């Protein structure tokens, strides 16, 4: 049956990390997920897209990043550098024709060298970090405490800090601060209307994103066209 779920794994730092695979045969698309909360918000729509790809006989894989989802690794020892290595390791296992990265996933997709590269709304590391910092600051304020972004950044130089439920280590915070998506030839789309857009909305920003079947199908059409 097309669309059946199975699991593969890739290994990094001696730990097996999960690859969720949907569809028959070896995965032709490897999804590099958005980072932190944005991953959780996009996951249901991403899995819908993977099922829709399987219906077109294109198997795909969604990788766990070390320290996230089912991973047994600690998040607070991760960095963008290590996650870039993880994408390379996952691509070595799946040998995808297309690497499809979303949002912050576009910050770590440049180690692998697929035939096709697809990106959805690439995010700057500084923007992701700023939203995480603002969320922490807002939480502190609700508890009657005052903390500034500058204080949190200073703390992060010495030890992991907790931002919106994520323990981020010094290297992760420093790398996020400066990271930009690598300038590589890629099909780049964003939700909306106009050129280089797909149907859908910025689900990764929503507190209650639910799922968006129309967006999932738009993702699939665009990727399938790129690979045709």
């Amino acid at each position, binding site marked *: 049956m097309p669309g059946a779920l199975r699991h593969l794994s890739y290994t990094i730092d001696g730990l097996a990390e999960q690859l969720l695979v949907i569809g028959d045969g070896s995965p032709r698309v490897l999804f590099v997920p958005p980072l932190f909360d944005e991953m959780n918000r996009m996951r249901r729509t991403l899995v819908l897209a993977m099922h829709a790809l399987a219906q077109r006989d294109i198997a795909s894989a969604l990788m766990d990043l070390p320290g996230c989802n089912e991973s047994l690794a600690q998040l607070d020892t991760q960095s963008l550098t290590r996650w870039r290595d993880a994408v390379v390791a996952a691509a070595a296992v799946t040998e995808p024709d297309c690497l499809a990265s979303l949002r912050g996933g576009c910050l770590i997709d440049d180690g692998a060298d697929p035939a096709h590269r697809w990106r959805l709304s690439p995010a700057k590391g500084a923007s992701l970090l700023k939203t995480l910092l603002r969320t922490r600051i807002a*939480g502190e304020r609700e508890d009657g405490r005052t903390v500034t972004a500058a204080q949190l950044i200073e703390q992060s130089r010495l030890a992991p800090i907790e931002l919106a439920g994520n323990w981020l280590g010094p290297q992760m915070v420093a790398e996020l601060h400066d990271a930009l998506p690598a300038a590589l030839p890629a099909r780049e789309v964003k939700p909306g209307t106009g050129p280089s857009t797909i149907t859908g909305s910025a689900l990764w920003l929503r507190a209650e994103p639910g799922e968006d079947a129309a967006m999932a199908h738009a993702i699939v059409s665009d990727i399938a066209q790129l690979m045709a």
Partner: protein
Amino acid sequence: MQADIAVRSVLVDVLGLDAERVAAFDADTELFGAIPELDSMAVAGLLTELEDRLDIEIDDDDVDAEIFETFGNLVAFAEAKQD
């Protein structure tokens, strides 16, 4: 991009509000307190998106509750950052 357009699109995208509803907002439309989706956590994403879409920088020390009282206040705040 015009601040007015950017603020509307960010409200739709971050809060998941209906685009037609947001298109009907005017300067006096109340936001904080009147729109349950707009809480302090949503404000974090909203500010960052405004920065990215308008290519402005927002110092969090400049952000107070008044900015989110009405649609007009929020647009005026964004416009001031564009200058």
